């Protein structure tokens, strides 16, 4: 093989794709689009109700006296007037609505507040009002039952499982190690699956296009078919890496800008979820400590080992499937859609690998996950998913060895099919023919 020519081929495959409009569109517009939607949603959620509302309260329960009457965008007034006269004031436009608090009994577990108005409350307004009264009722009940506030504060206990390894005393595992590991593994497995599928099928289409164009005959009178195949596979692989690198940078930069502009923080989201003020504070504290813990966990991962492994599996997985896809593209006839049966065969183990990987997120040491990570066709997707959960070294070693051997064998087989297939014009090849091509010597 001539590396000079392979470099030329890689260069062509890479630059024609990277300079194309489709690449620019998907690479730059997709993340901008995602960020814009994210920012827009955040904007809606935080600024959902931005007009001031003035609300009258008729307090028949006697709980509203010590309420802070000023809320974000909401002003309350406690009125000792009848509903009738307040409705008169509402019609004059003095109030946007009237809250009617029915009498409250300390044993009551369900309490309905009536809101009189023709305009409905926004989601955040109603949840703010609900949480406001929930807290008042809670205080009312604490007093009614004569409970000591200090004791009450002590009643809730947070429980965490703290795993401790028996053999390896050095290793520190915290309660959220497993969660962090499985989420990290799941994300990586998913990404690998997507990259292999998207860029593998680009290889297939590229090969088929050259065949249909008949340019392949000109090309392989200058280069060897295997050089052409490897150049194409590597060139498109680099396009994939470039795209992911740009996405990574863009998403980082844009989400930073978006959060700065729209003041969008994770706490704003959790505020929506946790209605109760007290809980909210606790949850916020909780979220903060959790985030810190997750960061600590992520930092504590064995990156020095994992990053090279991810790169290894990325290359192996991509090379393995991209060369199979190249063979399919070469074996397909002038109409690539006819090659459905061939594509299905290639995609089957890939999709199986994806499902095993997703189940490995929950149970990284299940039988399916272990064998799925060792079997070379599913391993490149399953093993990276298991990696953060520290699988035994022999499994990693076996998986790497098998997938390396398989990739070499498959590139060889794919190149043989490719070499014959690209010159066979017309209909797609049958399986019998493919078998013959592999052992065909010319």
């Amino acid at each position: 093989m001539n590396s000079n020519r392979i470099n030329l081929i890689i260069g062509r495959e890479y630059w024609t794709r990277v300079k194309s409009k489709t690449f620019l569109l998907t690479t730059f517009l997709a993340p901008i689009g995602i960020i814009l939607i994210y920012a827009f949603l955040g904007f809606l959620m935080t600024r959902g109700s931005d007009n001031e509302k003035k609300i009258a309260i008729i307090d028949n329960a006697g709980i509203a006296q010590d309420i802070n009457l000023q809320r974000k965008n909401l002003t309350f007034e406690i009125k000792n007037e009848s509903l009738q006269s307040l409705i008169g004031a509402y019609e004059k436009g003095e109030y946007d609505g009237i809250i009617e608090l029915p009498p409250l009994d300390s044993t009551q577990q369900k309490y309905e507040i009536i809101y009189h108005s023709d305009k409905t409350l926004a989601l955040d307004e109603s949840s703010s009002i609900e949480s406001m009264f929930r807290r008042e009722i809670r205080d009312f009940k604490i007093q009614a039952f004569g409970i000591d506030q200090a004791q009450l504060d002590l009643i809730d206990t947070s429980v965490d499982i703290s795993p401790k390894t028996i053999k390896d005393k050095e290793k520190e595992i915290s309660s959220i190690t497993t969660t962090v590991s499985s989420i990290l593994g799941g994300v990586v497995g998913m990404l690998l699956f997507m990259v292999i599928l998207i860029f593998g099928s680009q290889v297939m289409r590229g090969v088929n296009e050259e065949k249909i164009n008949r340019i392949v005959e000109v090309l392989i009178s200058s280069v060897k078919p295997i050089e052409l195949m490897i150049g194409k596979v590597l060139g498109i692989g680099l396009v994939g890496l470039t795209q992911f690198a740009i996405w990574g940078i863009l998403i980082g930069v844009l989400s930073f800008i978006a959060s700065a502009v729209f003041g969008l923080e994770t706490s704003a989201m959790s505020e929506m979820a946790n209605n109760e003020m007290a809980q909210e504070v606790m949850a916020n504290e909780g979220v903060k400590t959790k985030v810190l813990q997750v960061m600590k966990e992520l930092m504590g991962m064995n990156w020095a080992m994992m990053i090279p492994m991810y790169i290894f599996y990325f290359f192996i997985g991509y090379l393995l499937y991209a060369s199979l896809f190249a063979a399919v593209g070469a074996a397909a006839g002038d109409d690539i859609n006819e090659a459905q049966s061939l594509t299905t065969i290639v995609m089957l183990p890939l999709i199986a690998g994806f499902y095993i990987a997703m189940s490995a997120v929950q149970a990284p040491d299940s039988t399916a996950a272990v064998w799925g990570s060792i079997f070379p066709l599913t391993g490149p997707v399953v093993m990276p998913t298991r990696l953060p959960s520290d699988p035994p070294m022999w499994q990693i070693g076996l998986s790497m060895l098998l997938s390396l051997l398989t990739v070499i064998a498959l590139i060889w087989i794919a190149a043989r099919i490719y070499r014959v297939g690209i010159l066979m014009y017309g209909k797609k090849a049958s399986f019998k023919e493919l078998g013959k091509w592999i052992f065909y010597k010319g």
Partner: protein
Amino acid sequence: MNILSLRNVVKRYSNHTAVNDVSFDVPKGKIFGMLGPNGAGKTSLIRMITSITKADQGQILIDGEPLSDYHPTQIGYLPEERGLYKKMKVGEQLLYLARLKNLSAREAKDKLDAWLTKFEITDWWEKKVGELSKGMQQKVQFIATVVHDPKLIILDEPFSGLDPINTNLIKDEIYEMNRKGTSVIFSTHRMEQVEQICEEIALINRGKMILKGNVAEIKDSFKENKFEITFDGSFPSDLSSDSYDVIHDDAHSVIIQIKDGHDSNELLRGLIDRNIHIRSYNEILPTLNEIFIKKVGESHE
């Protein structure tokens, strides 16, 4: 010296033998015709010469050496099935193809500039191939075939789909390169094209070589002693017809076939003696097409 020699070359595909024991030599500096109907095995032969496929048996020598890795850079091949990247610009594409033939970027650019100037198409550099007409694409493809100054050019049906003007343009280029010493193999099923262009030919049918040699010699060996004579007045009826048969008789011309052991002078003398004014006198040589049909007919019997 031969630029290309084939020795008992065999190529089998799963269900048929595409090339069956073919041997011929292409002399250096000549325009060589490889003839045969569609499916005769021409493309299979060319693919072996260009290292696209390998021969199952036999030997292929380029300039006296067995085919090896660097030979493809010395050959320029214009396939019958033309193909270029539709979405790539003409310039980029030609540079890429030239560099695959081991030219440096600089060399490739210089040579391409010269070719584009020669064809007066320098403004195509930034155009996408898909925007060009078919004839224009063929010009681009031709440049890609010859830009690396190959020793041997193989053209598979080079004129199919070209209009007469472009046909002549390409033909002139082929002649010019040939004058400068480039050997040319010209593969076609259109025999009449070969008669004008080629000195030597090989005739192939169903994977087998059926005839090879110098075009003039082949024609000579297949001649049937036919002559066409045109004259003023009418053909005299009192001529003795011992030495010839009249095959065709028009008002002012006849086609005759001289019988074995005689020659056409006897007839001419008779005409001159009768004061018939002869306008032209031509030997009718068989066309390659006729020779081909005759040979194929024989091999089928």
